[in-house]
């Protein structure tokens, strides 16, 4: 089913984004690479730095380290003032939050308070074991926030490879409602997208037919759906190319992005229980953690 551009799309404009940084692996150049979004209505950036409790809380014999909190706050404040000055001079609106608390909780709170249209953050800092016990912050944010989340990754060590990560995205679709929402979102970004590659990965489990004919039939069915989707995108003014891949979804999407020289991956993120996602292996989680590309995850509609 192809949903035509409608009112829902207007609501999905990116006017305000929340830029969440710990200053270690997400820098101002990442934000600058997103400034093309001004063409798609961006006019307000809100900075957020979360001082995690373990940095300021209870050390043996010292208790709560108020002075450490002040130092961290001021350090963040000075950095944000410098960044904000650049944006203010471009006529952008800028806001700041520097808060102490749990990372995911504070990101969600700030996103809600400010009613942002996009959350930009860096990949998970937690190790595998830590994630197993306390869960993945990104997964929690994607699950709880009703806002799309861009997991920003540097494609080159010296900085963003693509001047504009939205320039040539790869849209991964599995024909679900979440994928449809990602398509709608993509349409709302028409002003900044030069070309989009659309990929569907048929898992090996889906290839029930062992005959070459059966496998080809699966490919053909998906290819026809992709063609229809690409036609719809082209009618909408976005150049689109279809691709069918077969195999492990996360790694095949990553391969497709490499093959297409994509600037980012866009995918819908289905609703799942936190417990299931923490222990399971969702595609969105896999992409956020494993892919080398920036990943934009579009959450399902609320309700």
């Amino acid at each position, binding site marked *: 089913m192809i949903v035509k551009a409608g009112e829902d799309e207007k609501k999905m404009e990116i006017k305000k984004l929340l830029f969440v940084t710990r200053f270690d692996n997400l820098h101002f150049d990442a934000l600058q690479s997103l400034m093309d979004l001004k063409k798609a209505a961006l006019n307000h950036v*809100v900075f957020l730095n979360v001082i995690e409790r373990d940095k300021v809380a209870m050390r043996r014999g010292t208790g709560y380290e108020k002075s450490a909190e002040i130092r961290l706050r001021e350090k963040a*404040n*000075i950095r*944000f*003032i410098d960044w*904000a*000055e650049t944006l*203010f*001079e*471009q*006529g952008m*609106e*800028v*806001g*700041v*939050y520097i808060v102490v608390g749990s990372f995911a909780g504070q990101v969600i709170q700030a996103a809600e*308070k*400010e009613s942002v249209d996009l959350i930009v953050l860096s990949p998970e800092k937690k190790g595998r074991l830590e994630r197993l016990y306390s869960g993945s912050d990104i997964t929690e944010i994607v699950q709880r926030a009703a806002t799309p989340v861009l997991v920003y990754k540097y494609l080159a060590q010296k900085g963003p490879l693509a001047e504009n990560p939205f320039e040539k995205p790869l849209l991964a679709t599995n024909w679900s409602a979440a994928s449809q929402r990602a398509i709608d979102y993509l349409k709302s970004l028409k002003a900044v997208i030069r070309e989009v590659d659309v990929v569907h990965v048929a898992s090996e489990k889906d290839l029930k037919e062992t005959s070459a004919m059966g496998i080809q039939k699966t490919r053909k069915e998906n290819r026809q759906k992709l063609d229809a989707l690409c036609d719809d995108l082209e009618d909408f003014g976005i150049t689109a190319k279809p691709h069918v891949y077969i195999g492990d979804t996360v790694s095949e999407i990553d391969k497709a992005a490499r093959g297409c020289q994509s600037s980012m991956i866009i995918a819908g993120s289905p609703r799942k229980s936190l417990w299931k996602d923490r222990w399971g292996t969702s595609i969105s989680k896999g992409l956020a953690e494993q892919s080398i590309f920036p990943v934009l995850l579009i959450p399902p509609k609320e309700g």
Partner: protein
Amino acid sequence: MSKKVLIVDDDPDVRLFNATVVEESGFTPIEAANGEEGLKLIKKDRPDLVILDVLMPKQSGIRLYRELKTDKSLIGIPVIMLSGVAKRTFLRSQKALTEFGDKPVPEPENYLEKPVEPEELAREIKKLLG
């Protein structure tokens, strides 16, 4: 009744500092934590002076200042900008917004960069509220 001074700053410590200076100077402080709240209080309480920060959540001082100085009924309220953001940036941002089609706005009555000495702030408040 003493004149009212609205302090708009997201940092509670700064609000407390400014409110103390305002009180010590013989005026009544009112406080707001962001531009959005600040604008509501300006319309409701009609303060005699606004001390305004720039970088805040919800709505920045740049936008609040613009709203104040483009509203005929509010334009006469003097403003002391008090921020870590440089005056040059503030003026450039206002210029950029004017270039994008907004109305031009006058410069603020005073622009102080943080941190400010209490004596300096008190002096500027008294100068404007005489």
